[in-house]
């Protein structure tokens, strides 16, 4: 199974690459071109950077990627990668993929960024791995137009927002599964087994 990480800038891709590669038969590659990134069995949008610069890197291949997702290309978007699956963001200019309807806005909590381990409430994303606590590091969150895509919620102070969204074979997580220890790695592997294969 070919798994491609779309690399749209800075960030630690090592842990994510290794987490994906723990699943047998997975061949992970990193691709900087959005158009070429969709030539794969599974697309992963990793999680570090700012929305504006990531959207700019995405722009030339945005339509191709959006269309590939609609046609059933399995995709896991992590943190900023999840936010790129939505329409737009208050963090920066440019268009996201618009696969999920909604806008990305700043957390309304006092302590921002949220950095640390928080809950995933009632996670029903995958049957093979349920996450109850995961590592988050973010200032912005996705506000969904249709709550039925939310497969797990979380709360930081008074602000409640989606921890996980799923529609078809596309999953977006606000937390970092690759930084959520063994249960996070189990979530990544279960995604590859259940959604991608």
């Amino acid at each position, binding site marked *: 199974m070919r798994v491609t990480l779309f690399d749209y800038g800075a960030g630690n891709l090592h*842990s994510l690459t290794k987490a994906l590669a723990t699943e047998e038969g997975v061949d992970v590659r990193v691709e900087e071109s959005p158009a070429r990134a969709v030539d794969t069995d599974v697309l992963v949008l990793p999680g570090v950077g700012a929305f504006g610069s990531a959207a700019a890197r995405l722009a030339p291949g945005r339509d191709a990627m959006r269309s590939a997702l609609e046609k059933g290309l399995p995709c896991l978007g992590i943190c900023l990668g999840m936010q790129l699956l939505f329409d737009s963001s208050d963090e920066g200019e440019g268009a996201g993929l618009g696969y999920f309807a909604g806008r990305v806005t700043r957390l309304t909590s006092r302590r921002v960024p949220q950095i640390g381990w928080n809950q995933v409430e009632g996670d029903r994303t995958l049957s093979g791995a349920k996450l109850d606590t995961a590592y988050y*590091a973010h200032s912005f969150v996705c506000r969904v137009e249709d709550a039925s895509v939310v497969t797990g919620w979380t709360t930081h102070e008074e602000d409640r927002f989606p921890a996980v969204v799923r529609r078809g074979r596309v999953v977006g997580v606000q937390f970092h599964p690759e930084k959520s220890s063994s249960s996070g790695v189990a979530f990544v592997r279960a995604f590859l087994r259940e959604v991608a294969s």
Partner: protein
Amino acid sequence: MLTRRLIVCLDVKGGRVVKGVRFEGLRDVGDPVELALRYEQEGADEVTFLDISASAEERDTLWDLVRRTAERLFIPLTVGGGVRTVEDVGRALRSGADKVSINSAAVARPEVLTECAERFGAQCVVASIDARKEGSRWRVHTHGGRKPTELEAVAWARECVARGAGEVLLTSIDQDGARSGYDLELTRAVADAVDVPVIASGGAGNAEHVRDGLTRGGADAALVAGILHDGLTTVGAIKSLLRASGLPIRSTT
């Protein structure tokens, strides 16, 4: 609810873990990769590598060490020490760090915090502040605590956050390695002054000290080093006490 974090700090020098008292008298305590993995297994919420290499030759081993660690460690890894420019931060993140702490370089040129936050996001920019008590205030020091500055710690923490830092790592030079507890007054003053998470550092001698740092000090996270490396207590024992005190703590069982 966001849980309070226990962060294990490994001081690294020339690719090995060392530990000193009040920034001096270094002893070799082990291999960074193996220690980081052991602490993840024991339930540490994060690992921090603080590079205290004195020479460029020693420092060259850091990026390779970070890469080897990131490939096996599945909890957040922060790297600090010797990070001066946006390019250094980019290199640290590329090597496998999730966050980078900036200390002397931010004092010398505070704009570096903004540049890093704009390019990589505030969540990976940690302002590291070393402070020494003088009367009723705390003076910021740089260069591993050796060089006094004109900055007052609470005001400097505020400025770091205004300039883009997403987290403050606050070390009391007076308490560091002394094992008599964090400087709670300093921790509380900074935690009340900024809206980003504050990590208490310097002085933990037992689990009660860690609890006090989080409760009376108001810190979001506590950094510990020597007491774990020396086997005086364990991550599990500290977290049990924190949980029993009513703090939200991540369970790993």
